C-alpha cells in the first residue's frame, strides 16, 4: 500500500506516522524519516520548492514502487512539501513498514536517496546571499549510485 502526496500545507508528522502505522497491519515495524529545511547558520531565510503538476507526483510514485519491488515492505508513504518553507519546518516524510525491521530501514534509506536526485522539484534558497537554485550535490549522486552496486551477499554469489 502506497501513499504519495505533494502538499502546500505544513506536514503533520504525527498524523502521517499514525496513518502509515494503521495501513501497516501485519507488519513488524515502521521506519520513518523526516527531513527538515536547514537554516545553514542563518544564511537561509526561506526555501521555495516548485513542482510539476504531473511529473512530480509521478516521480514520487515511481520511487515508492521501486522501493516496494526492491524490499519486502508492506506499506510506504512519501509526503513532500511544496511552496515556501521556513527553516526548521518539515520538508519530507518518508516511511516504510515491513514484517522485518531490516527491510523497513533499507526501504526508507533507499527512498530518501532516490528523492534527493530523482524527485521532480526545483528548490531555491532565499537568504543573505540572495536567491540561488539548488542542484543535487556529488554526494547525493554517490548515495543514489550505491544502490546499483551488488550487496555483499549478491557479490559473493
Amino acid at each position: 500500500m502506497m501513499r504519495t502526496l505533494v502538499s502546500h500545507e505544513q506536514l503533520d508528522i504525527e498524523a502521517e506516522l499514525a496513518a502509515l502505522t494503521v495501513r501497516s497491519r501485519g507488519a513488524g515495524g515502521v521506519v520513518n524519516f523526516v527531513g527538515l529545511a536547514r537554516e545553514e547558520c542563518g544564511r537561509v531565510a526561506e526555501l521555495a520548492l516548485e513542482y510539476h503538476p504531473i511529473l512530480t507526483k509521478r516521480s514520487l510514485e515511481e520511487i515508492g514502487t521501486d522501493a516496494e519491488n526492491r524490499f519486502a515492505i508492506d506499506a510506504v508513504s512519501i509526503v513532500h512539501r511544496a511552496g515556501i518553507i521556513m527553516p526548521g519546518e518539515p520538508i519530507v516524510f518518508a516511511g516504510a513498514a515491513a514484517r522485518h525491521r531490516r527491510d523497513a530501514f533499507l526501504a526508507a534509506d533507499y527512498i530518501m536517496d532516490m528523492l534527493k536526485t530523482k524527485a521532480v522539484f526545483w528548490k531555491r534558497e532565499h537568504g543573505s546571499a540572495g536567491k540561488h537554485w539548488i542542484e543535487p550535490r556529488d554526494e547525493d549522486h554517490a548515495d543514489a549510485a550505491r544502490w546499483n552496486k551488488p550487496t555483499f551477499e549478491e557479490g559473493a554469489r
Partner: protein
Amino acid sequence: MAQQREVTLYGKLADPLGAMVRVDGGEREERVSAIRVRVAALEPRLGELLCDPRVRVCIDGTMATDGVLVEAGRSVEFIPVVSGG
C-alpha cells in the same frame, strides 16, 4: 492565420521571462527542436539556459525528444535539471 504557442518554463528557466511565454508558429505542426530555437531567441539568458543538453521537453505529461513533432496549438514545457527532494 498566425497563432502563438504557449510554452511553460520551470525552475531557473523561468528567471529571465517568467514561467509562461508565447512563441510564433503555433498555427502549424513543428518539431520540438524548432520550438526550442524560437524560445531561445526570446531572450539571451534564456537562450543560454536552453543550450544545456540536460534541459528536457514535456508534452502532456510525456517526455519528448527534439525530433518529436508537436501539433498545431499544443503547448510544450521545458524542464531543467531537478533539484531533488
